């Protein structure tokens, strides 16, 4: 018991320390967890005694991958999955087959036994669903071109697991050890082929049927008890149950739960399931990544450093190369292709299973297996680092080059008078309104997919961080009249303002802000045009509420305009007192009182105190 508690504390503390640091450094949570695992692993702090313990944890927590695929399935409607069939079949299959074949050929060339070579090739063709999907989600790239292709490849790999597990026993010499096989594939192992096939289809059919007609009523029944933990338990039951069923017939549990997720994507319980399972998934995956980190056998690596490192890099390069060619054929842009290819360059967590299986079957010697495990774990650790380099160093360079090229092409076209920074919801509405009135703005945004879309729509868009001076130059800040910031980061806004004040003093700067406090800071910097993002909408909503309650539309319209002007004026007054806390509070009170007075006076029948519009009491009494 104590041992368990202490272990739990060690793991959680390591994660709490490493992951936020990794995130802060822009490395993503996966790398953070891996580093945490290495830290507490047998070779550094030694909290985990040996690689075996790490592997045990890894096998247990692999379930996080199963849950993740269930959750991903939930977000994918069946018709969208159908649209992906081309990606899964063509892109996925060519990746698996080509990679496996290449590794197989190379191992034969360097004189490895062909059976070992084939087993290694098949295992290493797979990429880590856990790492790739987690990173894609974190970077919000699931819906980008490269994200969708990565997902297609991963799905195909999950399907490929079935035939791979089926092929491995066939590699065993003369079948003598077949009986020694203690079975990856459940009780069906010893059934004749047609029964196996039948059972597989029956299992898939069962999942689909349950997804369509079974889970809904069950969840409905459970949710009526209004016991949240019971609902969570049912959600877990669905996932665990399907995983068990799939393992029973020798299919990939992840694939089964993914299927169930897709079927439940239209269910009214979708969001409840998501929010209930998400923490489990997160924790399990975190543990899983740490376990991977802890399994890295540094002793083995240091004694065979050159071989292992060259193998690791070789495998990654080879996998990336195959993917690069596929990406090129599918028309990915260079930055997209880089993140697609190197994102998938690691070897899968599932390979640990196939190594163990091959070891059991006697295809591998124990030393080979250890070797491969080390290489696999290393690839898993290195890919996030490579991705970091690509994301932070290479892609910005490429984009810069792109925008420079574009700039050269643009020198002949007219310069825009307006520069619009940020083209998410706020900025796009603004941009559309300007465009509808014949004003084209030069847009700066740092979401690559957004940039692609806007370019297609004929906007002049520059990718990148607007707080970079060179980017502002190339966007034509010298010639522009107005710079609008429609981003919601107050920090970026401040930097932007400073930059403009220093280098482009002629630019009229108009800034979106979140709230009063941000507005004060900008006022302090001397910005005149400040737009609190909620102000107009909330007042407009209030107008509609009052209209629904029977107030006259025009009266409310006037009052709303007054209220807004009042609020803006009050902001300026309060700004002068904001540093004097006590006075500030009393001023705020006074402002609120005045506001109340204004409003209540206006709306009561005896409004004459405030509003003399159209007919005042003195006039009436004449």
């Amino acid at each position, binding site marked *: 018991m104590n041992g368990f508690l202490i272990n739990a504390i060690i793991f959680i503390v390591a994660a709490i320390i490493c992951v936020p640091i990794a995130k802060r450094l822009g490395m993503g949570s996966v790398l953070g967890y891996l580093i945490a695992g290495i830290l507490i692993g047998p070779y550094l702090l030694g909290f985990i005694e040996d690689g075996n313990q790490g592997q045990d944890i890894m096998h247990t927590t692999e379930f996080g991958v199963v849950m993740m695929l269930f959750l991903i399935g939930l977000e994918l409607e069946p018709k969208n999955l159908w649209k992906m069939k081309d990606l899964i079949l063509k892109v996925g299959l060519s990746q698996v087959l080509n990679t496996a074949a290449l590794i197989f050929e190379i191992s034969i060339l360097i004189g490895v036994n062909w059976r070992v070579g084939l087993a290694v090739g098949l295992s290493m063709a797979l990429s880590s669903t856990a790492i790739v999907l987690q990173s894609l989600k974190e970077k919000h790239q699931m819906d980008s071109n490269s994200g969708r292709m990565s997902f297609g490849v991963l799905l195909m790999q999950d399907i490929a697991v079935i035939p791979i597990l089926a092929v491995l026993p066939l590699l065993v010499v003369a079948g003598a050890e077949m009986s020694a096989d203690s079975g990856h594939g459940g009780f069906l192992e010893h059934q004749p082929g047609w029964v196996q096939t039948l059972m597989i289809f029956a299992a898939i059919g069962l999942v689909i049927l349950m997804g369509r007609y079974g889970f809904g009523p069950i969840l409905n029944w459970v949710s009526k008890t209004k016991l949240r933990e019971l609902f969570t338990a049912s959600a877990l039951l669905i996932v665990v149950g399907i995983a068990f069923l799939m393992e029973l017939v020798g299919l990939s549990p992840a694939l089964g739960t993914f299927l169930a997720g897709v079927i439940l994507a239209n269910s009214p319980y979708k969001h409840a399931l998501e929010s209930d399972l998400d923490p489990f998934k997160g924790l399990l995956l975190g543990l899983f990544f740490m376990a991977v980190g802890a399994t890295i056998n540094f002793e083995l690596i240091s004694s065979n450093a050159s071989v292992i490192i060259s193998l690791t890099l070789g495998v990654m390069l080879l996998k990336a190369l195959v993917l690069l060619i596929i990406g090129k054929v599918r028309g990915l842009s260079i930055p997209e292709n880089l993140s697609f290819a190197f994102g998938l360059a690691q070897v899968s967590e599932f390979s640990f299973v196939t190594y163990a299986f091959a070891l059991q079957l006697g295809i591998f010697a124990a030393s080979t297996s250890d070797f491969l495990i080390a290489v696999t774990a290393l690839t898993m650790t290195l890919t996030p680092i490579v991705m970091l380099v690509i994301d932070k160093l290479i892609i910005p360079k490429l984009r810069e080059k792109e925008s420079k090229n574009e700039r050269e092409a643009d020198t002949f076209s007219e310069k825009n008078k307006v520069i619009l920074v940020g083209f998410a919801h706020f900025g796009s509405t603004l941009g559309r309104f300007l465009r509808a009135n014949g004003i084209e703005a030069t847009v700066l945004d740092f979401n690559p997919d957004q940039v692609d879309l806007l370019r297609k729509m004929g906007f002049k868009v520059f990718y990148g961080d607007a707080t970079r001076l060179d980017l502002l130059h190339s966007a034509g800040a010298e010639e522009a009249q107005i710079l609008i910031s429609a981003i919601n980061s107050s920090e970026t806004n401040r930097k932007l303002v400073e930059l403009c004040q220093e280098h482009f003093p002629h630019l009229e700067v108009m800034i979106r802000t979140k709230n009063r406090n941000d507005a004060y800071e900008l006022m302090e910097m001397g910005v005149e045009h400040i737009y609190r993002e909620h102000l107009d909408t909330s007042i407009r909503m209030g107008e509609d509420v009052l209209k629904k309650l029977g107030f*006259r*539309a*025009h*009266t*409310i*319209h006037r009052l709303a305009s007054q209220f807004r002007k009042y609020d803006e004026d009050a902001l300026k007054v309060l700004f002068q007192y904001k540093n004097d806390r006590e006075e500030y509070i009393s001023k705020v009170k006074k402002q609120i009182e005045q506001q109340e007075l204004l409003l209540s006076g206006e709306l009561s029948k005896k409004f004459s105190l405030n509003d003399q*519009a*159209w*007919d005042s009491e003195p006039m*009436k009494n004449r």
Partner: protein
Amino acid sequence: MRKVLIIFAHPKFEHSDVNFQLINAVKDLENVTIRDLYELYPDFTINIQEEQEILFEHEVVIFQHPFYWYSCPPLLKQWIDLVLEFGWAYGPGGVYLKNKYLLNAITSGGSQEVYSHEGRNRFTLEEFLRPFEQTAYLCWMRYLPPFHIGGTHQIQVDELQRKARAYRELVLQLRDEKEISIPYLQKT
């Protein structure tokens, strides 16, 4: 039976007892449409197309409004400016208002007596309403004499009710009379 359209403009209707009574007196009548401009267009953005279509469907048009500074409230002026388009209401092809009846139904703080050559306002109501008369004239409309309630700040309840009934009678007459017997003015 003619269709009657009341174009009603009061920026603070919720405080006007007189106009409230007038509207109440006619709002349930069949074939009488009331367009409450300040409620429909609080921000002065008028839907021209819709207003023209409604206008076209009706044969009698009443501008009901308080008399502010010897004229109508600004939204009614805006309405006239925008809806009575060249080529639609007047000018070449502008025949869509031809032979429709128009009158102003006015409430004023000043009494009937101050609107006379001898009174404080020096001119009669008809004289102040010349711009409306000429608008109707230009659009080939038939301009009828105004309906007027003066002294609204001091008006007594029974007097107000009598006036409201009279307004209702007028609207009914305009709606139902076979040939409208009130003299009107029209371009010939």
